[in-house]
């Protein structure tokens, strides 16, 4: 009787280890396959800063720029929101600009993915002039 029980325990421990390994490996696969948003790219070859920096710090740039514009009248410099929209607004089927905060457009795609609400466009224009 006793040896049988031991065998069962051994089997179940081996099964547990196998299960853990499987879980671990499948988790690793999931990380590699993480779904990233498909963002429509802008016009021009290069953004005003390297992409990695823009992804992380774009709000710092435009937040600094907004004060420069409001208080010092510095307009059209490289971190202006109007500049972002000029390059990143896509056109629809009839050649009209699509609002940059519309579903699937440049700003909105990432912000939906990151679950961050954009407040810029309650006031700011969403298409180039």
């Amino acid at each position, binding site marked *: 009787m006793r040896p049988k029980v031991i065998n069962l325990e051994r089997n179940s421990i081996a099964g547990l280890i196998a299960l853990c390994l499987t879980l671990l490996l499948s988790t690793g696969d999931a990380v590699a396959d993480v779904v990233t948003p498909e963002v429509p790219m802008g016009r021009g070859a290069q953004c005003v800063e390297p992409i990695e920096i823009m992804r992380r710090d774009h709000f710092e740039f435009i937040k*600094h*720029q*907004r004060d*420069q514009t*409001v*208080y*010092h*009248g*510095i*307009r*059209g*410099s*490289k*971190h202006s929101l*109007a500049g972002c*929209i000029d390059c990143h607004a896509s056109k629809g089927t009839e050649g009209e600009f699509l609002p940059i905060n519309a579903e699937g457009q440049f700003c909105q795609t990432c912000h939906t993915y990151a679950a961050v609400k954009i407040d810029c466009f*309650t*006031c*700011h*224009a969403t298409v*180039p*002039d």
Partner: protein
Amino acid sequence: MSCKPMKKDESVPLAQHRRTFFTQAAAGVSLMALAPGVRLVELAMANSEDSLPSNDKRWGLLVDTAKCESGCDECVSACNSEHGLSGHGRPETDAQWIRKVDLKDEQTGHELSIPILCQHCEDPPCVDVCPTGASFRRADGIVLVDKHICIGCRYCMMACPFQARSFIHEDLTGQKTHSPRGKGIVESCTLCVHRIDEDQEPACVEACREAGHDALVFGDLEDAAGPLASLSRKTATRELRPDLKLNTGVRYTSF
């Protein structure tokens, strides 16, 4: 070992630390002085430093009431289209940055039609009462709202003796790039600051000239040779509500 807190170098007395710091700081300062024009922190700007607003200028407007025609509202429509102002057919609450007012002297029957807009005061009551600092006066005298920090409390609207400010009650779409506007924010005449920054005159002034009235003269009150200051020197001008001693940037003549 690595968890140990960082130890001060006990062999160097504290005073010497301080001395080293001051020596290095002094070296830094002299280095900055040795290289004029080279700034440690570059200002992020596309325009040159010369174009920054400064209190060497004070932008203003002179309204010649003799030339301002009753029934003409070219300035109002120019303002509306420049800034994308559109109403909902509710004059009580629709945004209005400039309006025409008809006045009549009941004693003599003399009639007058004048535009009223933000008077760009030197001591603006709207700035005094703003709890967040959103209402401010730019260095060159233009009174503005920093809409990023306006909370829509409307104290400024109550404080303004000219009823020059509007509150936006509804969601807006289709704003102009140069004139961001939105719900829950107070706004008023910016003296077309976006045009001034590009050496152009305000839209209302341009429209008035194009309509052939030329009743609005825009310029720098500090520039003695400029059109506004020289005209103001030659003609009697007055401000609205002079009793409040606001020293307005917008002045009126011929009445």
